[in-house]
Every structure is written in C-alpha cells, then in structure tokens.
C-alpha cells in the first residue's frame, strides 16, 4: 500500500497548476505548491483523499530570500500517509489566507505564527496574542531578531565573587575565558594567546 500512495496524490494534483508532488519516505509526501493554488490543493486533499488531520503548520523565515515558507502537514487516517505542502510567500508584507474554514486546528497554528513571525492570516478567527501578551518587541522567531543581543542588553548577570576566586586573583590568576567567549555563535578562534 505504501508505494501506491504517492501516485493517487500526483493524479489528484494533476489538475492543479504548479503543484509538484514528491515521495520522501515510507509515509511522507512532499508537495510544492504556490500561494495561489494551496487552498485548492488542501481542499482536494481533504475532500478527495481523506487528509482530515492538520498536524501542524510550520513557518520558516528565509530572511536572505525575503520569503516565509509555510508548511502544512496533513495526515490521512485512511492512507496512513503524511503530506507536507510547502509554499513560499513574500516576507513583506507577510500576509496569507487562513485555512481555518478547512481545518479548525489551523486557528491555533496561524495565531502562533502570527505572533512569532508576524505573518497575518486573512480570515483567521483570532489573531490576538496568546503567548506573548506581555511582549512588545518584534516577532521573536524572525531571523532578524537577535534574541541574545536583546538579552545581553536587558539583563545583568550574577557577579560571583567566591573566596577561592579572590584568592586566585590575588595570586595573579582569574577568569581567563568567559563562557560567552567560547560559544559557537561568537567564538573567535583567532588569537588564542590574546
């Protein structure tokens, strides 16, 4: 059965322009759709192939390409197959259509993406903040939001002065490499001795 699943989907999508279908694994199919035809694709999948369960909507910020990628993961209880439909929308203005009328779980995911990435979904029932009600900054999951920089600028760290450290400092030692300097993000390998 598994091998057969890919074909019906590609047959199903034959009428939809610009939707490509590719089998990725035993129970995984990837569909590359366009923002224009995605609602049609989802409707076909739900209506004709029994993909009733919207497992998740994933958003990816491709900042360098100026695009958001939206992935709709659909599961069919009958075929036991998972379809991931990928689309890319422009990062600005970052607006897309809600699929809430097709899949109710979309309401939560769209709301989540809205507050984490700032993508607006037209027609979604509730795009109020949910998690970040007390957050005034930019949508934090965007790649251009430097969380660590924000943290460093906002918070102070504990300045430990234990006795052993004071003793070592008296002898001329002390903290040689701070943890921040060794982190994969900021690590400068140059100048070991400096």
């Amino acid at each position: 059965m598994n091998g057969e699943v890919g074909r019906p989907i590609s047959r199903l999508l034959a009428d939809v322009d610009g939707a490509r279908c590719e089998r990725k694994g035993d129970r995984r199919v990837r569909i590359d759709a366009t923002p224009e035809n995605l609602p049609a694709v989802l409707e076909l999948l739900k209506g004709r192939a029994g993909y009733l369960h919207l497992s998740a909507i994933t958003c990816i910020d491709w900042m360098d390409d100026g695009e958001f990628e939206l992935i709709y993961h659909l599961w069919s209880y009958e075929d036991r197959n998972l379809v991931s439909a990928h689309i890319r929308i422009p990062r600005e203005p970052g607006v897309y259509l809600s699929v809430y009328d097709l899949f109710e779980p979309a309401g939560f995911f769209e709301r989540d993406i809205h507050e984490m990435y700032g993508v607006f979904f037209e027609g979604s029932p509730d795009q109020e903040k949910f998690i970040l009600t007390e957050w005034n900054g930019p949508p934090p999951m965007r790649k251009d939001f430097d969380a660590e920089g924000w943290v460093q600028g906002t918070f102070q760290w504990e300045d430990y002065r234990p006795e052993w450290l004071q003793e070592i400092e008296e002898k001329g030692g002390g903290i040689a490499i701070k943890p921040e300097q060794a982190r994969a993000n900021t690590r400068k390998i140059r100048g070991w001795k400096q």
Partner: protein
Amino acid sequence: MRPENYQAQSHPPSHEYELNFGPNHPGIEGNYALQVRLHGDTVVSAHADGGYLHRGFEKLMEGRLWIQNIALVPRICVPDPVPMEVCYSLAIEDISGLQVPERAKWLRVLQLELSRIAAHLFYFGGHAATTGMYSPSFWGVADRDLILDRFEELSGGRVYHIFNIPGGVRRDIPEGFLGRVSALLDYLEARLPEYDDLLFRNQVFVRRSKGVGVIDQQQALAWGVTGPNLRATGLGFDVRRDDPYLIYNQLDFEIPTEDSGCCWARTLVRRSELQQSIRICRQVIAALPDIGGPVRAPIPNPLAWNVPVGESYTRVESSKGELAYYVLSTGGEKPYRVHVRGPSAMHAVQVLEKMVTGGRLEDVAQIMFSLDACPPEVDR
C-alpha cells in the same frame, strides 16, 4: 479582523461573571490560565491564556549546536520527557541517515513506555484530585517515583534523562537493571487492583466523570484531537502502530479505545494503555538480552557536526497524543528551524475552550486534566 456583519454578542438576561482559573490555581495543570465566563454554574465562554511557561525553545534551538539541543528538548514537556528526546533524535537520524543500532531502538522503546506509565500514573492522580480525591495522587506520585528511580539508575537523572541522543542512547543498561524493571512492573500490576478499588471502581468518581466533557468522533477529528483523547471517541489511531517508528511494528500490543468520548472514557483508555505499556515493557525485557551490539551509532564530534541539508517531520506517540518535530537543516552546525508540535497545543487551547463552554464550573478543572493538557507544550 472580524467579519463585517459582526454584532455584539447578546447577553443572556441574567447574572454573568468572570472567574479566572489560573495561573495560580489548583485546578490548572501547571502554569496556565483560563478565563471563564459563568452564568450561575454554567460556563458561557472560556478563553485560554498561555505563555506563562514560554521560553522560546524554537528560538533557543536555532542558536545551539545539534547536540546541545538534547539538553533542551526534554524540558518542553516535563511530565513526559522521553518522547521529546526520542522524537528530536529520530528527526536528526532521519535527516542525516544515521543507522540506530538495534539495541538502542529497544532501549528507547523501554524508556518511552516507562515514561508513558509514569505520565499516566501522574495523570490519574491529577484527574482524581480535580474531583476532590487526593489519595490517588499520593499513591500515583509515589508509585511513579519508583519508575523515576529506575530512570535515575539508567540515565543519571530522575526527570530530565537526557539519555537519548542522535544515533542511539548514551549508555548501556546497568547490570541487573532489567530484573529490577521487571520487579517494578510486577509491583505496578499488583497495585492496579488497588487503584481499581480506589478510583476506577469508585461509584462517586464514575458519577463525577461519566458523561462529562463529551466530544464525539467527528468533532474530535475536526478539532485535531489526538492520542488517548481521540481513542476515547472510538477511533483507534496510534502513531506507534499507524506511522511506526523504532521497533513498534515488531511488538505485540493493542490500541485500547472507548466510544463515549467523556472524561471517564479518557481515563479508562489511559488505564488500559498503562496495562498495554506494561505488556510492551515485558516484551522488551524478554527480548533485550538477546540483542547485542552497541547502543549508539558513531556520531561526529559534536563540536564539528554538520547535519546534512534536509528536513524531517517526525512523529511519535507521547502519553498525551501526537508529538511531532519538524527539523530543517541547511547543512550547518545548528538547526535552521525546529518546530515542535506538542499534542497539548491543540488540547489546551481550542479544544479546551470549546469543551468547557456549556459545561459546569466544577468540571472545568476535570476536563482540562482529563485531556492531559500539558501547558509547557503549548507555550514552548
């Protein structure tokens, strides 16, 4: 944002008032809030408010090495951390084509099922406590603690095991471990009749939970309910069987279902699942001594590990439902994107809001606990 023909909701001609459930409220699982609008004892509307446990995991993971994230993932769902570790590891193994040794797969299943038992024991206590009976939670937590002892022995940590890493598990089992787990399972099985007497055959408890918080199969499917909550509506769907991972297709177990979709049905499903998990554990214990070999595939030096370009949407069945990780690698030493789809993300927000509405004030907490909604999964 609203349709143009929006009209203000008409208020019923009676007293209505709002009650905050949480974040500091014994009827809330974890740190979560529910604003309930009441008409007498009846809930008119409910509004979930999350984010109290938000840590920005998905952002944190984008900034850490592949290996460093294994310390992070179990924290996404504290009562049931093993599926998180396994799911993350499976996703990376899927992308990078790592072949997990057979022994590691069986060990992972053992952990997953023990964790499920622990989570369910915790759940029974929680559900009973919302109805005013505290003894099951005292018992359940104490018995769960015995499982944590075994986890401590295995992984060195009681709650955060950080034991599954991409490629397998970190260590082999200590000597005599299987015997002790086996004894523990015997003990738990012997305890079950006592739990039955106290909780599952308790007339008052049955009366409190039967027919409360009903959700039928159509609604459950439309609302994206998964896991035991879905099985309580009669659909025998389980990721372990229908989208098998590790070695679940080699194991003999059943998927318990109930038809009525009420709190009582959900509890019964979990009770049977606990029995099935014990059964799976026994199979693993029987099979494990014959499976030799390493417990971990060699992985690259964690400080210089580029997972190849690729993406994976990996799902496992946690004690709460369908848990999925979407992991995307652009070939770097860190993930480009990790999306965690916790089962409770559905249950604790949309489903809970809808199920509570129209119900009774005294059942709000019970419904939330019976869905086994885990707020940190929602907030991430």
